[in-house]
């Protein structure tokens, strides 16, 4: 009935609804996989990098070596990295999460290290004056003051990982890369958008919400932006 007004548009809407009805659940599960992969990697990364950063804050020479190594790891192109672990870990979730985990370490590690070290010595002296031992200094002064910077590192890391998790579809780990790649292969715009849009939105959402957390934990006296 091409004489109907907005016929073309209605057809578009219908084809999208068809598409979503058919593919909707698989897109949802891909999104879930993607989230699990990314958040899992970042969580692991945080669990390792934060304590490591705190430890390194006390040993400057070791710190520069470790930071140098993780910096170099960061520079390696993701596909290359996936390629490196393939012979050892095969395909699937394990190699994907390993690579993502390794990528998540540097931003968090560097920010933890810098954050702890940049706590003003005046505060530390005040703490020592109050009779704190080293562990108390860490718990009550250094860590709370460094927390905003650490949070910033976690935010950068999360967005970064969500972005690169799209590639894990290449080695069979699922995620939103699957519809994107399928769309590229079949030159199907709907599939591409169905994968690309949620991926972009996940990244933007993470960036925005973790940004809010960051600002919320920054003591009012230190708020800069």
């Amino acid at each position, binding site marked *: 009935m091409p004489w109907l007004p907005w016929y073309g548009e209605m057809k578009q809407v219908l084809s999208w609804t068809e598409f979503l009805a058919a593919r909707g659940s698989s897109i949802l599960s891909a999104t879930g996989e993607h989230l699990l992969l990314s958040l899992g990697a970042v969580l692991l990364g945080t669990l390792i990098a934060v304590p490591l950063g705190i430890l390194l804050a006390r040993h400057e020479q070791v710190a520069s070596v470790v930071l140098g190594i993780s910096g*170099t790891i960061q520079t*390696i192109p993701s*596909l*290359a990295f996936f390629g490196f672990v393939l012979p050892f870990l095969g395909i699937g979730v394990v190699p994907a999460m390993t690579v993502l985990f390794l990528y998540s370490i540097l931003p968090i590690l560097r920010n933890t290290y810098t954050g702890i070290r940049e706590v003003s010595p005046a505060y530390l002296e005040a703490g020592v004056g109050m009779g704190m031992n080293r562990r108390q200094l860490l718990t009550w002064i250094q860590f709370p003051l460094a927390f905003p910077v650490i949070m910033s590192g976690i935010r950068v890391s999360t967005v970064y990982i969500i972005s*690169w998790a799209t*590639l894990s579809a290449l080695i069979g780990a699922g995620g939103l890369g699957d519809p994107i790649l399928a769309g*590229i292969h079949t030159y199907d715009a709907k599939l591409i958008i169905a994968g*690309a*849009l949620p991926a*972009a939105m996940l990244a933007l959402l993470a960036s925005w919400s973790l940004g809010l957390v960051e600002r919320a934990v920054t003591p009012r006296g230190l708020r800069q932006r």
Partner: protein
Amino acid sequence: MDRVLALSWQHLSLSVIGVALAAAGGIPLGILLTRYRWLAKPVMAATEVIQTIPSLAMLALLMMLFGLGDTTLVVSLFLYSLLPIVRNTYTGLLGVEPGLLEAGKGMGMTRSQLIWLVQVPIALPVILAGLRVALVTAIGIATIGVLIGAGGLGTLIWRGIQTRNNTMVLMGAVPAALLAILTDAGLALLEQALVPRGLKKKAVSAL
């Protein structure tokens, strides 16, 4: 072996072209932003949004506009390089000590002279740091260009993955990694070398 070299060269050229285009647009933009401060916030926000979009998603979306092939890759590299370059240019130029600007003004410099003779030379390490980050990221993204029909070392990696040929994967992955690492190190050295003698402080990376 020649194949690897040819692909490496292609990989590098694509990345460099993308970053160069972004620099050609981004550095003047950064300079402009210091003059019209009110523009800074929206521009930074826009480039940040671009940056946050996952590269595969961006490549796929651009592919629908520009088709398969190298062009799409270069366009996306251009877009992704904007943030580091613009932000570092802007921050670097603003980070020049006000005292030096006043000295320049006292010598009778016009605003353009101030920018080109004082601010840019001093901000050069920071700007270069931005270029470095942009180029290394570009090399990384160019690796997945193969998925939309572009060239580069990604082709070896990808084909190796598909045919379960680990040697081929490594023949692509190792040069790609080396390319990135060496570019990073090389540009870092350049950064240090370009700091004016009077200002030998550690080059700051704004990222």
